[in-house]
C-alpha cells in the first residue's frame, strides 16, 4: 500500500472522519455479498474426490480448451490496442474532419453485444448461406469457415476494442496538451513527443482498457457459442446442460476464474491510485496534429470500421426482416413483452448496482487504506467472474436452497405472493446475478467521480458548519451525480445484452430480447432474431450516446 507522503494540505482524509466505521461496515457487507456466489462453485467442486479432480483437470481435452481460451484472450487484447490507440489519437489530437461524429461511431460497437455481430455474420457467411449463394455463379464453392477460433477472435475484437478506445480517449483529453507543445519546442519530433511525453501519461489508461478487453474476451459466452469456438465459457454451458456434467462445469469455471483473477492481479499493479482532480482551473489543449494528405485515408478507415461493425449487421438483420422464411414457427414470434422484460430487469439491476457501488467507491476514494482497497477489489471479483460462471454458481446455490419461506412478503406480482418462493430461476436472483456481474462498472465510474471532487470542498463544507452526512449530500453527491448516473447507465447497457446468466437463471417463460435471439439461433430461424436484435441495437445505441454526452465532450 502506498503511504501518503503528500503535504498535509493535500491529504484526502480529514481529522474528523479518519475512521468512518459505519461506512466501512456497510462497504464490507456489500463486498461480502459480491463474493458470495463464488463460494458455491467451491462447495460443488469440493464434492469431487482428489483423484477424480486430478483426472478432470489434467486431461488433454482440458488443456486444449485452456489454450484456446488464452489464445482468444491474448489475440483480442493485442488487436484491440492496435485498433483503439490510433483511433483515440486520431479523434482527440488531430484535425480529422467530423471528429465528434467519428468519436461516437468508433465507440458505438461497445454498445452492441458481440454475439449480435456474430449472429449476423454467421447467418449470412455460414456454409451454404446467403453470401455463398451470391458468389456461387462466380465459381466459389466454399467460403473460409467463419466457425472456430479465428472467427471468434475477429468478431470479439470488433466489438470490444472500444473499451481501450474510451479509456485512452479520456486520458488523452485529460492530458495537458501544452506538454506536447513543450516537447515540440524542445526539438522533439511529433512521434518522439508522443512516445516520450504522451504515451507514458496515457499508458495506465491503455492498460486499464486492455484489461477490460482481456476480461471480456475470456468471459464472452455468446460469440464462441454461436461460432462454436471451444473455449471455457461454451464448454461450461455444454457440460452444465449435459447429464452429470455439473462437476466438470464447476472445475472449468474455477479454471476460468483463476485466469481472470490473474489478469486482475496484473492490473492492480499497474493502476495508480492518485487523485485525478487538479487545482488549476484549466489544462491547455495544445495544438492539433495536422493530418494533411492522410486526412481522407484516416476518415475512410473510421468509416470502414463503422460500416463493418454497425451498418453491416443492421443491413443483415434488415435483410432477414424482409425475407419471408418458409419455416415460420409461431413459438418464435416476437412480442413487445420481451422488450419490456429486458428493460425492466436492466433498470432494476442498474439502480441496485449504483446504490451499492456508492459506499464502496466513496470509501475507497476518500479513505485509501488496506481495508477500503480490499473491499473495492472484492467488488471487482464480480467482473472477473464471467456471467456463465455466476449463473452456474447461483444455479448450484438455488439447487441447495431451492425454496424458502417468505410468508407475507410481496413483490407486487401475484405469482410471487406465495409462501414458498422459488429462488432458483426467479427475478430477484437474476437481478442479483446482474448486479454481481456489472457492479464494477458502477464502482469504477463512481470512484473516478469522487476522486475528481477536491477534498477541500468537503473541508470547506465542514468549516461552514455542515456535519459529514449533510456535507456529503449538499456538496459531494451533486458533484458525483453525473458519474453515478453514468455508472448506472453502463450497468443498464451491459445488462440489456447479458446472455449466459439470463439463460441459466430466468424464470421459466420469462423471455427477454436476448433469449429470443438465442432461441432463434438454436432453431436456425434467423429471421425471428431480426426484431429483437434491431431493438437491442437501437436501445444500446441510445444508451451509448447518453454516456458519451455525460462526459461533456466538446470535440
Amino acid at each position, binding site marked *: 500500500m502506498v*503511504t501518503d*507522503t503528500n*503535504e*498535509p*494540505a493535500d491529504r484526502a482524509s*480529514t*481529522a*474528523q472522519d*479518519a475512521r468512518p466505521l459505519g461506512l466501512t461496515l456497510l462497504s464490507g457487507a456489500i463486498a461480502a455479498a459480491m463474493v458470495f456466489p463464488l463460494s458455491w462453485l467451491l462447495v460443488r467442486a469440493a464434492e469431487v474426490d482428489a483423484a477424480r479432480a486430478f483426472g478432470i483437470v489434467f486431461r488433454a481435452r482440458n488443456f486444449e480448451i485452456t489454450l484456446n481460451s488464452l489464445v482468444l484472450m491474448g489475440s483480442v487484447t493485442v488487436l484491440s490496442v492496435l485498433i483503439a490507440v490510433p483511433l483515440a489519437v486520431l479523434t482527440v489530437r488531430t484535425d480529422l474532419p467530423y471528429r465528434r461524429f467519428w468519436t461516437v461511431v468508433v465507440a458505438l460497437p461497445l454498445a452492441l453485444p458481440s454475439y449480435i455481430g456474430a449472429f449476423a455474420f454467421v447467418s449470412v457467411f455460414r456454409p451454404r448461406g446467403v453470401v455463398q449463394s451470391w458468389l456461387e455463379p462466380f465459381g466459389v464453392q466454399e467460403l473460409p469457415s467463419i466457425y472456430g477460433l479465428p472467427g471468434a477472435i475477429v468478431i470479439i475484437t470488433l466489438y470490444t476494442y472500444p473499451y481501450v478506445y474510451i479509456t485512452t480517449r479520456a486520458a488523452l483529453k485529460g492530458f495537458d496538451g501544452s506538454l506536447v507543445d513543450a516537447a515540440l519546442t524542445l526539438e522533439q519530433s511529433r512521434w518522439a513527443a508522443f512516445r516520450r511525453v504522451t504515451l507514458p501519461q496515457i499508458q495506465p489508461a491503455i492498460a486499464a482498457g486492455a484489461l477490460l478487453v482481456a476480461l471480456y474476451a475470456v468471459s464472452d459466452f455468446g460469440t464462441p457459442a454461436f461460432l462454436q469456438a471451444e473455449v471455457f465459457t461454451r464448454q461450461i454451458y455444454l457440460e452444465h446442460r449435459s447429464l452429470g456434467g455439473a462437476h466438470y462445469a464447476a472445475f472449468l469455471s474455477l479454471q476460468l476464474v483463476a485466469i481472470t483473477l490473474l489478469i486482475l492481479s496484473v492490473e492492480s499493479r499497474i493502476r495508480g491510485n492518485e487523485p485525478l482532480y487538479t*487545482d488549476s*482551473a484549466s489544462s491547455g489543449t495544445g495544438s492539433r496534429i495536422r493530418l494533411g494528405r492522410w486526412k481522407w485515408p484516416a476518415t475512410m478507415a473510421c468509416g470502414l470500421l463503422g460500416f463493418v461493425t454497425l451498418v453491416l449487421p443492421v443491413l443483415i438483420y434488415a435483410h432477414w426482416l424482409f425475407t419471408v422464411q418458409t419455416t415460420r414457427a409461431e413459438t418464435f414470434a416476437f412480442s413487445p413483452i420481451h422488450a419490456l422484460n429486458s428493460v425492466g430487469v436492466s433498470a432494476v439491476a442498474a439502480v441496485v448496482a449504483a446504490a451499492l457501488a456508492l459506499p464502496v467507491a466513496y470509501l475507497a476514494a476518500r479513505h485509501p487504506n488496506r481495508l477500503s482497497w480490499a473491499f473495492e477489489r472484492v467488488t471487482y471479483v464480480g467482473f472477473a467472474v464471467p456471467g456463465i460462471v455466476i449463473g452456474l454458481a447461483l444455479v448450484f446455490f438455488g439447487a441447495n436452497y431451492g425454496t424458502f419461506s417468505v410468508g407475507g412478503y410481496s413483490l407486487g406480482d401475484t405469482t410471487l405472493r406465495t409462501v414458498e418462493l422459488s429462488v432458483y430461476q426467479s427475478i430477484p436472483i437474476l437481478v442479483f446475478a446482474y448486479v454481481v456481474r456489472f457492479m464494477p462498472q458502477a464502482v469504477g465510474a463512481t470512484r473516478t467521480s469522487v476522486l475528481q471532487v*477536491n477534498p*477541500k*470542498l468537503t*473541508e*470547506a*463544507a*465542514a*468549516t*461552514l*458548519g*455542515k*456535519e459529514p452526512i*449533510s*456535507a456529503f449530500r*449538499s*456538496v459531494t453527491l*451533486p*458533484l458525483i451525480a453525473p458519474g453515478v448516473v453514468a455508472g448506472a447507465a453502463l450497468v443498464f447497457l451491459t445488462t440489456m445484452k447479458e446472455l449466459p446468466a439470463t439463460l441459466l437463471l430466468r424464470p421459466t417463460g420469462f423471455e427477454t430480447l436476448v433469449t429470443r435471439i438465442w432461441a432463434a439461433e438454436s432453431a436456425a430461424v434467423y429471421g425471428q432474431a431480426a426484431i429483437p436484435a434491431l431493438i437491442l441495437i437501437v436501445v444500446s445505441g441510445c444508451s451509448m450516446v447518453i454516456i458519451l454526452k455525460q462526459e461533456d465532450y466538446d470535440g
Partner: protein
Amino acid sequence: MAESVHTQSRRTQTDETNEDAILELAEVRKRFGNETAVADSTLTVYEGELLTLLGPSGCGKTTTLRLIAGLERPDTGVVRIDGEAVAGDGTFVPPQGRDVGVVFQNFALFPHLTAAENVAFGLDDWNAVERERRVDELLELVGLSEYADSKPRELSGGQQQRVALARSLAPEPEILLLDEPFSNLDVDLRVEMREEVRRILKQAGVTGVSVTHDQEEALSISDRVAVMANGRIEQVGTPQEVFQHPRSRFVAGFLGDASFVPGYVTGDIVETPLGRIGRDRLYGLAPEYDYTRIDVLVRPDDVLAQATDTANADGRITYRRYLGPTVLYRVELDSGETVGAMHNHSDQLSLDTPVTVDLAAAHELAWFPTEN
C-alpha cells in the same frame, strides 16, 4: 541555533488570563509519520486583530492553520477558542462545531452552486428572510452584488476570492482563517486584494489568521506577524517589531535583504568596518556584551555608498541590479564582508568602483552575538 539568547525587551507574551485572547495554541505538536510539521507551538491571537503566520514552504504554517480549523488533530497540546478547549485536554471539536471560517488557497468554491448559493451554504439554520438579507449584505461587502447568480467558473480569480471570503464570513465566525489567500492571483490583483481583504475583515470585525510565505504581504496587511521555521514559531510581533528587531538571523533574513557586519563593543562605541557606531544606536545592547564581538544587521536602505579614490575606499561595487525606482548595489568591504546598498535610480555607480560606505539609518539597529 543559539541566536536568540541575548536579552532584548519585547512585548511580552500574554498571561493566561488575558481577556482579549480569542485563540490560544499551547504547546501544540503535530507529526505526519516521521516528519514533525508543528513542534510545540504556542501562540495567542487577540480579538479583532489580523495575525499572519509567515514562513517558507514546509515550515508548518498551513498545518497550524488546519489545526486551528479542526481539519487536523494535534498529537499533543491544547487549542482554545474563546477560552474553551477545542482540541487536546481530551476533547476534539470537529470543524463544523468550531465557529471558525476558512478561506482556502484554491478558494474551494462549490462548482455546482452560484455565488449567492455558495455564500448561503453555511446559513442553513437561518430563516429564509434573514439568510437572503445576509447573503445580499455580504455580496455587497465584497462588491459582487451583480454576480449573485454566476457560477464560480464564470468569475475571475479575484471575484472567486471575494465569494470565498463572503462565504466564510456569512455564518459570522469568531475567527477567519486564510490559507495563502493571494497565491492564486495575478501579481497586480494580489496587491489590490490585500488592501481589499484587510478592509473587509476590519469592516466585518472578525479576528483573522492568515498564512503566507510572502513577507511583503505579511508586513503590509497584518496587525501582527508570527514568523515560523521548521515547525516552530520563531518570533511574534508587529510588522515593525519583527522587521526592525528580528530575534534570530533567520527572521532577519526571511523578512528582507539582510547583511551582517562585524562589530566590536568598546564602551560607548561599537567599531565596525562602516565606521564607529554609537552604542545607543544598537537596540538593547546589554552591558555583558562589553568587549565582545557582535554582528550588526544592516539592510540595503540603511547603507549609502559613495564613489571615492582607492586610497580612501571601504570597498568596491561587485554587483548592481537596476530595479526601476531604485538600484541595488552590493559592496565587498575590505574586511571581506558584503553589504547591500539601496540607492535612488538617479545614482550611477559602475561595477568595481571604489566606494566609501556610510550608515545612513536614523533608526536603532539590530545585532546578534557573533557565532564561533
